[in-house]
């Protein structure tokens, strides 16, 4: 075929636009703007009080995300989820959006941030090769950012899909979070991974949420809460290619202004995985990630912020 571009991602699963992009948490942008305005003018307490009607509105008016959440909760709890559990999940989600305003600018007074695995993280950072942090849409990634500021002064960059990156950057700029806005690496630029590598080379942390991927990305079905779910291969391919220590990282919301930030050892790579071993690495790494995600999601089911059909249509 003349004039072909290099066909890396076979358009095999074309037409299967990821559900989360087709129907993202529609609340996010609007809610984020509203929350930010309220939080900045009136403070956390007023913001928190307003979360009740706001959460009720989003819970009651969006049947599709609600169905998806019910499916997750049914699997995680091992029984049908009632409105109580749904409410807790939705309330937790809107709470993290409110809390972001403070966490993202490093204003953690009034917050209780419990750290776990910081020694494990420090030990790996001491190697000087940086640490790749695999997270998920489970809890608040921003909580982690604040902790990195407070207890562990280190360069932290977060990989994000382009649309989200632009929105978050705009928002962070509005908050005056110049340095933090710069620490977002938008996916989709050819040099995104070069930036990742350079940040790691400086001994920094690079976080990415490894439970979703943009359209066209390679997905691998792995067992997750009872059935195979498609998870992106990219984060694990990246880890193999970089050959740096990989940890899991979750910022679980445990109550009002209470977060538990966890860093867990995952894969201590000392060198890039040779090409021949990459598929084998993926086959090991992906199910292990899914298993840890499953355990953590079961432990904190109200932190599951994937409001799309995670197991596919």
């Amino acid at each position, binding site marked *: 075929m003349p004039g072909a571009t*290099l*066909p*890396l991602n076979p358009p095999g699963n074309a037409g299967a636009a990821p559900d989360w992009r087709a129907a993202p948490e529609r609340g996010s942008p609007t809610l984020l703007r509203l929350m930010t305005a309220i939080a900045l003018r009136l403070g956390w307490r007023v913001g928190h009080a307003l979360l009740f009607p706001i959460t009720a509105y989003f819970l009651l008016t969006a049947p599709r995300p609600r169905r998806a959440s019910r499916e997750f909760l049914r699997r995680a709890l091992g029984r049908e989820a009632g409105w109580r559990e749904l409410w807790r999940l939705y309330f937790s989600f809107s709470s993290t959006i409110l809390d972001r305003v403070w966490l993202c600018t490093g204003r953690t007074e009034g917050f209780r941030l419990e750290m776990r695995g910081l020694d494990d993280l420090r030990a790996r950072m001491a190697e000087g090769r940086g640490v790749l942090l695999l997270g998920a849409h489970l809890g608040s990634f921003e909580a982690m950012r604040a902790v990195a500021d407070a207890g562990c002064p280190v360069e932290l960059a977060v990989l994000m899909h382009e649309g989200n990156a632009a929105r978050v950057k705009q928002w962070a700029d509005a908050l005056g979070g110049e340095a933090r806005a710069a620490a977002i690496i938008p996916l989709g630029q050819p040099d995104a991974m*070069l930036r*990742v590598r350079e940040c790691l080379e400086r001994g920094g942390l690079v976080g990415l949420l490894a439970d979703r991927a943009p359209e066209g990305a390679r997905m691998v079905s792995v067992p997750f809460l009872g059935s195979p779910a498609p998870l992106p291969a990219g984060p694990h391919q990246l880890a193999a290619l970089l050959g740096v220590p990989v940890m899991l990282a979750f910022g679980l919301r445990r109550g009002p202004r209470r977060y538990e930030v966890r860093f867990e050892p995952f894969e201590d790579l000392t060198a890039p995985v040779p090409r021949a071993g990459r598929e084998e690495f993926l086959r090991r790494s992906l199910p292990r990630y899914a298993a840890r995600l499953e355990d953590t999601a079961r432990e904190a089911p109200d932190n599951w912020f994937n409001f799309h059909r995670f197991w596919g249509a």
Partner: protein
Amino acid sequence: MNAMAKPLPTGSEDTLAIEEELKRLIIEALSLETTPEEIDAEAPLFGDGLGLDSIDALEISLVVSKAYGVQLRSDDAQNHRIFASLRSLAAHVAAQRLR
């Protein structure tokens, strides 16, 4: 290595040789199911799900650094152009290698 018949707008003989070599290296590094002849050197390397992604770019940067000792960096303001096509990447490698 002598240049082939077709004159190139930006290409020197060196660039052309690197271009051909890069095709092979990239096909090998990314395990692409295509032949060097099938790759249009002027077509975009990266793009909407059909082209390469940024992980591939990292892979390519490793290949380029190993084969030519040229480091691709994210702070290069020219990246947009360097990554535009195989031809522009080859031109960049040729230029950097001379320094």
